[in-house]
């Protein structure tokens, strides 16, 4: 297993370097540059040219890339022009907010997806399964931002059960119980929106996995041993069907990044996704590049994590 992990890590490094180059080149290809967004009409042409020179924007791209990469490696993504602060500092709080949103969403995805998938797979083609399958079709057809908007409108504005924006009630002391509770309260609706849509893949995958495992020969062997149905399901069918789901855990990160971009925007939740859209609008490119790179790295690490989990969980891969 260690051999496998090391080899997999070695593949990851060039992936990340390639990603950084692509991200950088794309950013350069965007119309305008770091200065376009905030040019003060009163500034003179000479002044602008001077700033360009000072920021190295006149250098050839590979010099710029080298300088940028050297900074990135040290955790320096440059300055945000909008906020007039280091990108790293700006992103840090947002990353933490998104982390909590993702964590709660992930828990909800599995808390909803596993029981539904299990029931649906065990009682396939009965009424309960048809209801659950109907839900998954709806979930596939509904874009997450539409669902988020509707949820916000009903539970936020109409019923007033949940806050309609932000990540915490202003004026609370960080670390207090009220603060944490308020954070959770702000998280619930956006997380639930992500989870209710994001879990349908898990439900369908688990369902088909269970239906498939149910008719395997080794299930007959288990029954022939005299195992009661409860044991046949828990020890053989569910266990064998959930293991591949565990392996998808890493890929789930990619889904969460995609989901949070829209959801944070809709719920005005100060996370990475929210910052991302805002920075694109304002052409705050150093922030955009930093966020794209970060998400890309997370996605690559997610895939790596999935492969490692799969190798731990499935003995047939483990020995290779």
């Amino acid at each position, binding site marked *: 297993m260690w051999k496998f992990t090391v080899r997999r890590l070695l593949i990851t490094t060039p992936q990340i370097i390639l990603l950084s180059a692509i991200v950088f080149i794309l950013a350069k290809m965007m119309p305008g540059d770091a200065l376009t967004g905030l040019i003060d009409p009163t500034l003179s042409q000479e002044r602008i040219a001077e700033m360009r020179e000072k920021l190295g924007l006149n250098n050839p791209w590979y010099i710029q890339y080298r300088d940028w990469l050297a900074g990135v490696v040290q955790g320096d993504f440059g300055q945000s022009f909008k906020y007039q602060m280091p990108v790293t500092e700006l992103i840090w709080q947002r990353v933490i907010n998104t982390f909590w949103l993702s964590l709660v969403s992930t828990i909800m995805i599995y808390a909803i997806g596993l029981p539904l998938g299990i029931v649906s797979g065990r009682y396939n083609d009965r009424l309960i399964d048809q209801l659950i399958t109907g839900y998954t079709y709806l979930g596939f057809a509904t874009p997450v931002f539409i669902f988020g908007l509707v949820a916000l409108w009903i539970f936020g504005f109409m019923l007033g059960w949940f806050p309609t924006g932000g990540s915490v009630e202003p004026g609370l002391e960080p670390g207090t119980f009220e603060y944490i509770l308020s954070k959770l309260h702000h998280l619930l609706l956006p997380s639930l929106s992500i989870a209710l849509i994001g879990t349908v893949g898990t439900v369908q995958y688990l369902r088909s996995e269970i239906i498939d495992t149910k008719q395997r*020969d080794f299930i007959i062997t288990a*029954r*022939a*041993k*005299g195992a009661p149905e409860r044991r046949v399901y828990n020890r053989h069918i569910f*266990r064998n069907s959930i*293991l591949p789901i565990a392996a998808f855990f890493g890929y789930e990160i990619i889904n969460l990044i995609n989901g949070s971009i829209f959801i944070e925007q809709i719920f005005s939740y100060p996370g990475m996704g929210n910052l991302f859209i805002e920075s694109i609008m304002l052409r705050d490119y150093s922030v955009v590049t930093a966020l794209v790179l970060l998400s890309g790295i997370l996605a690559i690490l997610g895939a790596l994590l999935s492969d490692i989990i799969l190798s731990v969980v499935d*003995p047939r891969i483990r020995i290779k």
Partner: protein
Amino acid sequence: MSNPLLEIKNLKTSFRIGEKYYAAVDDVSLNVNENEVLAIVGESGSGKSALAFSVMGLHNRAKIEGDIFFKGKNIANLPTKEMNKFRGNELSMIFQDPLTALNPLMEVGRQIDEVLILHKSNMPKSQRKKYIIELLERVEIPRPKHVYNQFPHELSGGMRQRVIIAIAIANQPELLIADEPTTALDVTIQAQILDLMRELKDDLNSGVVLITHDLGVVAEMADRVAVMYAGEIVEIADVDTLFNNPQHPYTRSLLSSIPLLDDAQDKLHVIHGIVPSLKHLPREGCRFSARIPWIEEDAHEEQPTLHEISPGHFVRCTCYKHFYFPDESKEDQNHDVAKS
């Protein structure tokens, strides 16, 4: 006389296809005594597995009619909960395909352990482990301690079949049903597994239902043989009688289709065609007549039933007397020509 170990009476196992039920096992009656090997032979699709699964109660959507007495208790349609006291315990089964019959994500030792946990709940864990290692030794698996922690995919087909046999014999069953235990294996491995099964059967004194379409296996292992065709038993006899004096045309065709190394001519006797699918089985008159079209219509019986033609030798239909293989008759004609 004591009761037979297993007594099947008028068993009919039907599967639902569309709106209707079709019998894959049709009015089968059989006995198996203690310490006796009953072989069930027949082509693929003749209902052998359906019969075995009925006895084990492993069908999940079949209609089962008739009686299956195991040690005097009728276990046909027994609720799962009660059936589970027998399964894996006094009544166990060996499956055809060792590559799929084990859970791929569970260590071999734990898969054997499961059958002990289920039926020997008061055996402590350390003792179970010791016993499992002994079992692995008994089914002649080398390095049993190592294999205990291995996964099925790390073992060859033959080794996996030994593991399945270990599971089946773990609780000293009184009746062992083996459904084509060697069909999926290489020829050399087949012989080893058969040797092992014969040894174990002698040790355990258990009754065995051995399902196979390999008559070589029958000759080696069986005490009595039941020949099945299209869900029905067409002939039952002790093994010597069956091999030396087969009566039903289907039995005769099976016997003459064993390829003999020194006589390629024997292949001539193979009766062509396959067992029709469940839905298309003829349900009236003789099910086999369609495959021997050279026999005149009026030679067939309308409702062929089993007749005891000598003690313990049952044959379906009486008109086997009219039956001949086409090339046999040619030979006869040749004789006639030679004589005249």
